[in-house]
């Protein structure tokens, strides 16, 4: 017996070849349909950010020509970009969807949650999120999380079982075999579902371009009043910035992610079109989270710890 070292020809011209975007799309649609087939009360977390916009687009395609059989849930930090909220409401109206809003501001006003000294509201979303899930008895919660975002997320399952406190236990995850997703759960428990698990940031942008999906304007380069904090450009506004000693300046920037204004940083950019954004991301030497998220830098296991508590 001799060693086989085969020279293999690339079969790009095979009539059955599927592009990587088609393969990812097909897999995500399969996940949406599995949830529709097996769960009673699914909900899509919808923030008006690009990942949730892509999720909604996939759900629309998965059930066409019927309407999407899910409601939407937005955990509103109260520090949102106005363009994003406007986009959110317009999208909900256009597709005749039902939107629940869980408001961090309400929890603060009622004295249930307390503002953090650093002003960051992202970690405060966990309680309104988990209470909304309990209150509406959602049994499957779609999130736009991708495994390429962060190393704790790289360990996340597509179907991720959460206990009645929404907690994630990475050591007690179910093995996920083939495309056989196990969504069984006890009453009070629910499953977080991540249809974009296998997508990268670049995949998301290439798919947005291919499908001609509309996005909030803040994803494209525009002039904005910002100030520097912890090495990031934050939007000046009523949410609490700038503080003394922080100077506001007008810069040409865009956002790679959309989140709470207090911890979502902008990047310097002149990319005003989808093609320019894609070229910029392909050439970027920084990850999406590293470039724009202050809350992930709190500690080496910041994301893991928040996920354990019930964060997306």
């Amino acid at each position, binding site marked *: *017996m*001799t*060693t*086989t*070292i*085969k020279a*293999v020809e*690339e*079969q*790009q011209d*095979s009539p059955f070849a*599927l*592009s*990587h975007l088609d*393969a990812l*799309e*097909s*897999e995500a*649609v*399969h996940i949406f*349909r599995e949830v*529709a*087939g097996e769960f009673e009360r699914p909900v899509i977390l919808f923030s008006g950010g690009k990942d949730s916009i892509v999720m909604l687009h996939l759900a629309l*395609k*998965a*059930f*066409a*020509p*019927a309407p999407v059989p899910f409601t939407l849930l937005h955990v509103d930090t109260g520090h949102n970009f106005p363009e994003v909220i406007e986009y959110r409401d317009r999208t909900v109206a256009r597709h005749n969807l039902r939107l629940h809003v869980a408001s961090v501001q309400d929890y603060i006003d009622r004295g249930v949650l307390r503002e953090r000294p650093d002003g960051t509201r992202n970690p405060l979303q966990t309680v309104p999120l988990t209470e909304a899930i309990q209150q509406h008895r959602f049994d499957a919660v779609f999130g736009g999380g991708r*495994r*390429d975002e962060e*190393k*704790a997320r*790289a*360990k996340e399952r597509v179907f991720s079982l959460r206990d009645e406190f929404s907690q994630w236990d*990475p*050591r007690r*995850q*179910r*093995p*996920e*075999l*083939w*495309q*056989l997703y*196990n969504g069984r759960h006890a009453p009070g428990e629910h499953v977080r579902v991540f249809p974009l*698990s*296998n997508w*990268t940031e670049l995949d998301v942008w290439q798919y947005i371009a291919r499908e001609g999906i509309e996005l909030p304007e803040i994803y494209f380069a525009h002039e904005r009043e910002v100030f520097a904090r912890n090495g990031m450009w934050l939007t000046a506004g009523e949410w609490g910035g700038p503080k003394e000693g922080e100077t506001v300046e007008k810069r040409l920037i865009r956002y790679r992610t959309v989140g709470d204004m207090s911890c979502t940083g902008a990047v310097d950019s002149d990319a005003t079109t989808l093609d320019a954004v*894609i*070229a910029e991301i*392909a*050439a*970027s030497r*920084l*990850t999406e989270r*590293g470039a724009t998220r202050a809350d992930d830098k709190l500690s*080496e*296991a910041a994301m*893991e710890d928040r996920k354990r508590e019930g964060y997306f």
Partner: protein
Amino acid sequence: MSSTTAAEHLSATTLLRFATAGSVDDGKSTLVGRLLHDSKSVLADQLEAVEHASRSRGQEAPDLALLTDGLRAEREQGITIDVAYRYFATARRRFILADTPGHVQYTRNMVTGASTAELTVILVDARNGVVEQTRRHAAIAALLRVPHVVLAVNKMDLVAYEESVFARIAEEFTAYATELGVPEVTAIPISALAGDNVVEPSATMDWYGGPTVLEHLETVPVSHDLTGCHARLPVQYVIRPQTAEHPDYRGYAGQIAAGTFRVGQEVTVLPSGRTSRISGIDLLGTPVDVAWTPQSVTLLLEDDIDISRGDLIVPSGDAPATSQDVEATVCHVADQPLTVGQRVLLKHTTRTVKAIVKDIPSRLTLDDLSQHPDPGQLVANDIGTVKVRTAEPLALDAYADSRRTGSFLLIDPADGTTLAAGMAGESFATEKSAEKSAATPADDGWDF
């Protein structure tokens, strides 16, 4: 070092899912780290985080294993405890890497990684050659029917880059893997640490004329000729808009598990056995004439027949037999055991049915492939054969014919735990049967 430019990065069109397997100290993390690093998939802030963490642990050089160990417990213990998925791209292809731990007690994780992989990279240490763990990895790749296997003979720098060392290991491994029915083995001599034959061809091993690991990953075929495959569509969901615009639309949505479907084709619905003809195929809202695996589609049929989630649509004349008795090899993936007489749920494609474990005829030792009769139960990481009786008939293919319609899960009905990963039919493909199936025409019978 490859320098992928932005424009090249965007030209990659196909996707390869692959898995790595290796023992604790044979350099798997270094290989993965080098693939990610040299394909420029490690970005500056990630590298900075690794450098920072390495320094705070008192290490001089950045420890690339920290790139892949994402959980607190893993970093604390310096081991990998769970499958992680990584993403990288070159000018030619996108990759999804299932990075699986090598410890023997994590056999279930290797099975998990291999279940969706089209290729497995098995690492051996050139100084040790083929060891027990290597045979275990080969057996799992064969059991899970991973189409392509790469043997990476690592640490060639520590055996003076000797061709004879590589040739001996490659020959022993290939003979063993072929006996198990692995259809294709590609052996590559590498040094993950020095970078020989991982991304760049080795300057020291000019006796080797084959591809580097990355070249092979970029060129191995991912799409197969589907014309001979038995077409299968498990129905996931019935789409009925009942709107003014679409008052009569009734579509059967699902991901094609195998083969191709065409408009006009006569189909049979299992388990009912009713037949109809495909009147239309919607590919996510766009009508098409033909669709194939793994596309998610919606089939429209000429006749209004009763079809629901869990049914299987197949071409008439190419239907698998339905049965309530399943014989299969299972890998036990849960901490609680699987015992004879146990009541379980069986999830096959989109159908979940009640079932009873009737018998556990044997347990397999992966090291030497010996069968131990009547073990009574299977515990975590055991691989064994089981006989299961289901409450309803199932249309199960042999796993050898279809990884998707020949696989199933056993689930604990009490708490929903996934107990076992099942593969219907023969455990290992022998060389003879592999040749036979390659030569078998598509319409030639369907027994198992």
